[in-house]
């Protein structure tokens, strides 16, 4: 997954240099923002898609603390995106 730091989703900002530069045509700037938003959407969708059943399906017989960790991670992940 892109933009994952320490298991936390980071939404990458578009290059400030390019976006702020006078020499970048507006059309290109719009394109940069667009692709950023597409990336962010994908990242957020990936986090929302996470389901606790996946741990069981992987077949390594997880115990109940896995369920706690799952919701803790998912909560932290979504909190950091929200901020």
């Amino acid at each position: 997954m892109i933009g994952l730091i320490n298991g936390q989703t980071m939404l990458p900002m578009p290059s400030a240099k390019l976006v702020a530069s006078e020499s970048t045509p507006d059309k290109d700037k719009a394109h940069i923002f667009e692709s950023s938003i597409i990336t962010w959407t994908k990242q957020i969708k990936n986090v929302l898609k996470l389901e606790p059943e996946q741990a069981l399906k992987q077949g390594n017989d997880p115990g109940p603390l896995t369920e706690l960790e799952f919701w803790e991670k998912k909560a932290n992940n979504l909190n950091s995106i929200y901020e």
Partner: protein
Amino acid sequence: MNSRIEANDNFKYLNTLRPWFNKLVDSGKEFNTTHDLYLPIMHLILLIWKRSKFYNTPPRLVVLIREICNAIITKARDFMPGPAIFQLISSEETYEACEKLATTIDVCTKFKDAYFEYKAKAENTWKLTTNALFVRLDSFLERCHDILHLTMTIVQFNKLAKIELGGTKGKSLTETLNQIFVEFKKTVEQFQQLNYDIMDIEIKQFDDDFYEFRSKIKELERRLASVITQGFDDCDTIHGRFKLLDSFEGLLNRPIIQDELEKKHIVLLDFYK
């Protein structure tokens, strides 16, 4: 963002279970006290089900219960590992293996009991298919029952080592008994050669190997039943007949032998007419 609120809320409620789950997976906690944790855990789960806004759907409960079952199975396998069963058999402490397997079955079954107790308290809101919940625990329990059957068989057959029959046919019957015992020991030794952990329910080969063991034992049981009935007919006093039956004690409960002896019980009763 609903998902974010849901994840935070679920974590907040599940966190109340953390101390109990920590105790459940703690290797320092005695296995035969594990069931003390079941009721507090189920109680909290029911409270969460009733109070939380999101953690109150069958899919959530299924995951949680299945994961608790996994933790119990892991503990049970630490308590009674497959290789240790073979070691106990080899050092003629099979009875200890029987006791530990019975404890394992008891501790695992009690979790299902606790679940059903709280399912009843949840008043028809836990609409879950029980099969999906306990699929792994049930196959573990089945395996424990199979292995308990194996160890009980060994304890019962070991009696043959000490039995000597009297009467006119006594000598030849005792010889046949010895032969049966030798073949029995060979069958057990062969079973002990299995090069996998017999408590590992992922290994399905066990079912075939155990079936083969049981088939051999059944054949030995038929031969044993025939020795007992011959010895019975050979005795002419009621005292001798009871003594004979007494010496085979535990073995008489095995279905094949029991069937064969049923006819002889009538003969015994006839004495009292």
